[in-house]
């Protein structure tokens, strides 16, 4: 695999006359596409860009292979296999798409499905993201875990800014990464329905896990309900409001609580997303609020931990194939009140990323960006990165 991938990609990029069209068989019934992206930057010893303990989003080679099998106008089978840094391939998406009526905007999808919540998580391809980095709400690891729980406010205070590897006394006591507000690296398993198209579209899903902790197999007998209402008042403007609610704590961690404290611990989330595009501009804004129920914490009366991610993004094409982009991003956390302290339960983070992209070919994109990160507490308070990314899609 390691030796084969670079050779295959070089061959694809050099193929004469090929402009990134997906490979199509049996009259278009089977389509194969994919994307390879390589991102390089300096070491991230403060774990600002990690999506789990071992993987930085800015030091990553990713290979996606996508397939869509259409069995007539009503059925399709969709899948994606992904490998990061050429590790073992894993299914990222795998679901059945059902379109019962050809003349009605009504679809059902079941399996490992794209999330309905928000907007960014469905910007699947690296080429859809103008910068190498990801929005904080969809990537940054908070200090909350689904399989281990804190017992006191002081434990949370002492772990501020350490979400890349965190340990708690209740549940699994080994150190492991925390959760982002919305996990864009894994999709949940369940069933979703989309009704309507333009100008109004409603999508709703019932899934095994939650936004921050998608699951293939249920681990707590709870399900998540999520929905998004999209509205396109005029061409070029898309607005969306989202909501989600589901149990995020694993059964083992919940059972480790004293019997009196064993209640469903849920993640609640709400989101707003907006996109405006015209001419050479694309402007995007997204807000994600998440609240996680927690068991009684010694030292405080708080029983829910909140976080709010805000993101503004702009892309402007200055010449054919050449664009400039920027993103301003902030992740804030609610305060925990104790007798001696009032402080956010995790360290607020601000990220500014500016960069440029140049398309060598239609399907070969180079990105270069500068990313500034600032954290209000924790062992390392700030880190800047110069990152480069190559994206080849087909």
């Amino acid at each position: 695999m390691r030796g084969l991938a670079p050779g295959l990609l070089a061959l694809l990029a050099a193929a004469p006359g090929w402009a990134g069209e997906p490979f199509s068989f049996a009259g278009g019934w089977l389509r194969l596409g994919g994307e390879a992206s390589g991102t390089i930057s300096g070491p991230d010893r403060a774990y600002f860009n990690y999506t789990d303990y071992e993987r930085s989003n800015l030091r990553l080679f990713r290979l996606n292979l996508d397939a869509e099998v259409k069995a007539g106008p009503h059925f399709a089978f969709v899948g994606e296999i992904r490998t990061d840094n050429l590790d073992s391939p894993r299914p990222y998406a795998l679901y059945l798409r059902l379109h019962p009526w050809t003349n009605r905007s009504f679809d059902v999808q079941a399996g490992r499905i794209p999330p309905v919540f928000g907007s960014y998580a469905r910007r699947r391809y690296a080429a859809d993201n103008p910068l190498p980095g990801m929005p904080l709400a969809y990537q940054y690891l908070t200090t909350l875990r689904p399989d281990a729980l804190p017992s006191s406010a002081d434990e949370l205070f002492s772990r501020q800014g350490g979400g890349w590897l965190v340990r708690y006394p209740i549940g699994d006591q080994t150190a492991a990464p925390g959760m982002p507000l919305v996990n864009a690296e894994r999709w949940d398993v369940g069933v979703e329905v989309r009704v309507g198209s333009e100008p109004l579209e409603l999508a709703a899903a019932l899934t095994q896990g939650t936004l921050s902790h998608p699951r293939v197999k249920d681990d707590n007998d709870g399900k998540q309900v999520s929905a998004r209402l999209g509205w396109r008042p005029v061409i070029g403007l898309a607005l969306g409001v989202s909501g989600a609610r589901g149990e995020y704590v694993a059964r083992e961690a919940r059972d480790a609580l004293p019997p009196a404290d064993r209640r469903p611990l849920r993640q609640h989330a709400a989101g707003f997303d907006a996109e405006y595009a015209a001419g050479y501009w694309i402007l995007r804004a997204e807000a994600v609020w998440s609240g996680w129920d927690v068991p009684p914490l010694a030292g405080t009366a708080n029983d829910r931990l909140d976080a709010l991610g805000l993101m503004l993004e702009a892309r402007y094409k200055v010449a054919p194939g050449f664009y400039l982009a920027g993103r301003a991003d902030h992740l804030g956390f609610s305060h925990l009140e104790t007798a001696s302290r009032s402080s956010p339960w995790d360290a607020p983070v601000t990220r500014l990323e500016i960069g440029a992209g140049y398309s060598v070919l239609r399907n070969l994109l180079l990105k270069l960006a500068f990313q500034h990160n600032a954290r209000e507490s924790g062992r390392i308070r700030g880190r800047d990165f110069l990152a480069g990314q190559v994206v080849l899609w087909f």
Partner: protein
Amino acid sequence: MTRIVLAALLVGPLGSIRGRVEVRRELPPIEPRPAVASLGMEALREVPDRRRSVVYLATAPQGAFEGAERPRAVLNQRNQAFVPYVLAIRAGTAVDFPNRDRTYHNVFSFSKAKRFDLGRYAGGLSKAVSFDEPGVVRVFCEIHSHMSAFILVFAHRYFATTDAEGRYRIDDVPPGTYTVVAWNDGEARETRTVRVPEGGGPVELDFVID
């Protein structure tokens, strides 16, 4: 018209080259990338006719490069497809790109002969580009990955695009021996030599592209 009359007076009766291009090779429709992140089935779209070919003279006769007119041509964006799929024009032609859909399109090309990007614009609007350099220009839509078309820009006027039956006709060709090329879907597929007699008249020339 004046130019043709003058040419006829100078070189004698003009001829024409006509015939049929039969495309036997399999040309499946260009498909969009698998819609993995979509929440439902993609909208139906128009399938472009990839069998349309262009027949042209590789070496044009003297006087073929003259002409001061600035013609216009149209390449539509309709039902998520460029129509026509192949457009043959003479250098200096301005091509209009009307958006006839209810969604945004973003026409662009990174071809050596013409690099441009029209940005996103809504249905009912149109933008134009002048093509001044001969060459092959591959046109795409940034938003819809399956939308593509070819614009062939010629320095001379001796070219023709095939119709739905594959027929073509190049008129007003002065007598002489010419290399004729049949181009299809991105490549010059077949080259033939033909002689237009001194007395003018039509010359039949068919191509088969396997």
